[in-house]
């Protein structure tokens, strides 16, 4: 029979995996008889569910336009051989150095 410590580690490791190893069966038996550990499992699952349900932000239109302008400048200057640099890094080379 598994104990609470083993169940705790297992719950956080294998939240949504339906495994069927002897260890899993042991943990399931423990969960069936331990309200505390099943409450924990439920709350960890809910934590993940809540984060999964958070909306994913799309690119705002202003940022999208700026990005496309950057791409245009980037490719144009690259064709001229003077690719611009991003805010923090120096240009090493431009693509097109070889073809695959």
């Amino acid at each position, binding site marked *: 029979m598994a104990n609470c410590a083993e169940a705790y580690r297992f719950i956080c490791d294998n939240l949504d995996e339906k495994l069927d190893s002897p260890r899993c069966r042991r943990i399931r038996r423990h969960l069936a008889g331990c309200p505390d550990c099943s409450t924990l499992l439920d709350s960890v699952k809910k934590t993940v569910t809540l984060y999964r349900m958070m909306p994913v*932000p799309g690119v705002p239109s202003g940022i999208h336009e700026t990005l496309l302008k950057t791409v245009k400048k980037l490719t144009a200057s690259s064709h001229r051989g003077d690719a611009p640099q991003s805010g923090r890094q120096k240009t090493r080379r431009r*693509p097109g150095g*070889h073809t695959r």
Partner: protein
Amino acid sequence: MTVRRGSDRPDDELIREAVGGSTPAFTTLVRRYENTVYGFASRVCRDREKARETLQDTFVNVYRKLDTFDGKSRFSTWLYTIVANNCLMKRRRRKIDDLLESLDEAPTGSGKRQPRFTEWVETPADLLLTRELRSVLDRSLKHLPPDYRVVFVLRDMEEKSGAETAAILKISEEAVKSRLRRARAFLRTQLAPYMEREQE
């Protein structure tokens, strides 16, 4: 002969043309992946301005390094790696890392009859609509150190497998597992007071 529009063409074809200097091909790749990059950056950075910078820097880096992409992994995996590198900066070990390591151990209760965990409310979907909960979720994720946050975002929010998360971050699957375990436990602890309070 069927002529495919840029948006229908596979990544490898577009990459080959972009490496050869095609602006339309690179623009198509940018349009295809800008939401993926921005969404992931927003989730990891938790800051609109940083996400915007990461979006720009990522595609500048992609353009520069496109000819080094070997096609062994998926293009999106490679992109995630670049975004993660842009988001994660070297930082000093913080006290919160020690707290996360302590979460490997099961919490102990004060007495045998005292339950250690209180039941949570049943309707997270309704709760999510509240601004208060969204702010709690956001704040808790911000408190998670970036190395742990990026693993949680990839595994539990972007729903990547353990193997792909390990490949993106260039760490072992074992490291992914242990960071995920600590991240989940940390976030659960952060949300507990709010979720338990709602039930009263």
